[in-house]
């Protein structure tokens, strides 16, 4: 994992402590959402569909610090909404750096260049920039032409100023694996520290309800993307989680692994589902009926989920599970570039992104219309 040694050691020490303490459910990364307001309106996002008075609400720095202290994780991810729109985001980051928390500030980077002066480069602070693929793919994904160019400008400025920068890419049905692989090349050339990947979750509240990947298609897509990988690609994720996305590992969801705190409180049960709120982290652990969640539970809301917030903590926990975890880790190290001739063949299959279909042009036959929406 391309992170500073101090971060690796801190996280490893924390995880070992949890295991030695025999904690069955422990948090790995806190997802701190200080606001829901955003300067994008991505159709596949279900995080910002609120009335104006909720979108105007913000967690104060003190509320953020209380949640961070309560949860106790060494890593804090700050998504949203767009965190750079928070009126005191610099104070929040400063306070978390003081607490020696490793922060991933998740941003679409539209404001990054403009607000970079509010922050100081630190090993504790990483800008995790949302880039959903190459220019056309990203712009369609975030429903904003020009969004890609602004994000790239932000990345360049942050890298130049000495900040740690990673990218996070969410993939939906219709993603072109060759284009995603080319996107990896482009991001690494920009000098980012690593990349993060996830299939999109079928948010109940998202405006778009038609392009969420099912598990079978997710595995095929990620196998085609992540097999035969280039040495230059660095991923800021657990190797076993990436194998899970490729269908090489099977895990059960650990929704408590990345608990979420926002203006409503501690979200039940996870970062993606909103099934109510608890007022304290302990109440979240004690009062959530965990058996009702995860694909294995039969809950239809969890049927397609393979998202990091549910399964990356599972993968990390599995790595620490005695000999089987050790063996899985050794195998992943030996896998090298994950050579796979079938996966290479899959890259030759024709793909037409959903957005390439112009609905203003009349389609002559049903068959051709169907083809346009096939991944």
């Amino acid at each position: 994992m391309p992170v500073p040694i101090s971060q690796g050691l801190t996280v490893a020490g924390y995880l070992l402590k949890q295991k030695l303490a025999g904690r069955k459910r422990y948090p790995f990364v806190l997802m701190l959402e200080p606001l829901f307001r955003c300067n994008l309106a991505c159709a596949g996002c279900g995080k910002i569909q609120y009335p104006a008075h909720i979108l105007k609400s913000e967690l104060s720095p003190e509320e953020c610090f209380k949640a961070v202290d309560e949860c106790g994780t060494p890593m804090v991810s700050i998504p949203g909404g767009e965190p750079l729109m928070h009126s005191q985001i610099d104070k929040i980051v400063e306070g978390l750096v003081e607490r020696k928390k490793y922060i991933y500030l998740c941003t679409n980077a539209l404001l990054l260049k403009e607000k970079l002066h509010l922050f100081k480069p630190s090993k504790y602070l990483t800008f995790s920039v949302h880039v959903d693929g190459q220019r056309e793919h990203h712009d369609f994904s975030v429903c904003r032409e020009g969004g890609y160019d602004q994000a790239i400008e932000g990345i360049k400025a942050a890298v130049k100023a000495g900040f740690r920068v990673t990218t996070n890419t969410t993939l939906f049905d219709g993603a072109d694996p060759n284009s995603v692989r080319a996107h990896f090349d482009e991001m690494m050339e920009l000098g980012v520290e690593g990349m993060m990947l996830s299939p999109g979750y079928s948010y109940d509240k998202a405006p778009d309800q038609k392009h969420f990947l099912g598990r079978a298609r997710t595995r095929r897509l990620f196998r085609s993307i992540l097999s035969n990988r280039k040495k230059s690609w660095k991923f800021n994720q657990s190797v076993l989680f990436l194998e899970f996305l490729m269908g090489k590992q099977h895990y059960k969801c650990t929704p408590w692994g990345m608990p979420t705190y926002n203006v409503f409180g501690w979200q039940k049960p996870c970062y993606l589902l909103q099934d109510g709120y608890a007022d304290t982290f302990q109440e979240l652990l004690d009062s959530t009926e965990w058996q009702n969640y995860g694909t294995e539970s039969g809950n239809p809301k969890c049927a397609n989920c393979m998202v990091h917030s549910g399964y990356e903590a599972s993968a990390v926990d599995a790595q620490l599970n005695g000999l089987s975890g050790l063996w899985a880790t050794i195998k992943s190290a030996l896998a090298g570039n994950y050579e796979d001739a079938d996966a290479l063949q899959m890259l030759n299959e024709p793909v037409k992104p959903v957005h390439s279909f112009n609905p203003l042009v009349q389609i002559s036959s049903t068959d051709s219309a169907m083809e346009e929406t096939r991944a």
Partner: protein
Amino acid sequence: MSAPTHSDRAGAAQSTANAALDPEQLEIAAGTARQNVEGWVPELASDAEIRSALEQAFEYRGDVTITRKDGAKIEGYIFDRSTGDSLATSFVRLLPKDSHSRLKISYAEIAALAFTGRDAAAGKSYEAWVKKYWAKKTTGEGEASIQPDALE
């Protein structure tokens, strides 16, 4: 007007059946089918109707107005609900539109419910965006985007 239910999610029965058979075989995760409930005023004649309507209100992407049995009206966003054995032990938690307080209201105290706020996701489908994009391209009107709603 009838309102959507939880079972409307994931292509209704088909997806639930698929998931029950083997979620690992799912190719596409069908999303939630939503009806437009903006402006809906549900009947609250029975306990079942009250429970169902408040579940819809919890799922709604806009504000609702609750009228208490003492006549007080509260407009706001329901962010939590907890259901107990009786209406008296079931409650919603709500952030009022005009204050920063958090209110907890028992189902037994609720006389009426109305979906008064705008559905925050209405009209922002991917299809609408793609259509807008191509329309802009066809007319040469410049860069296309879907903008977040103004907050005022």
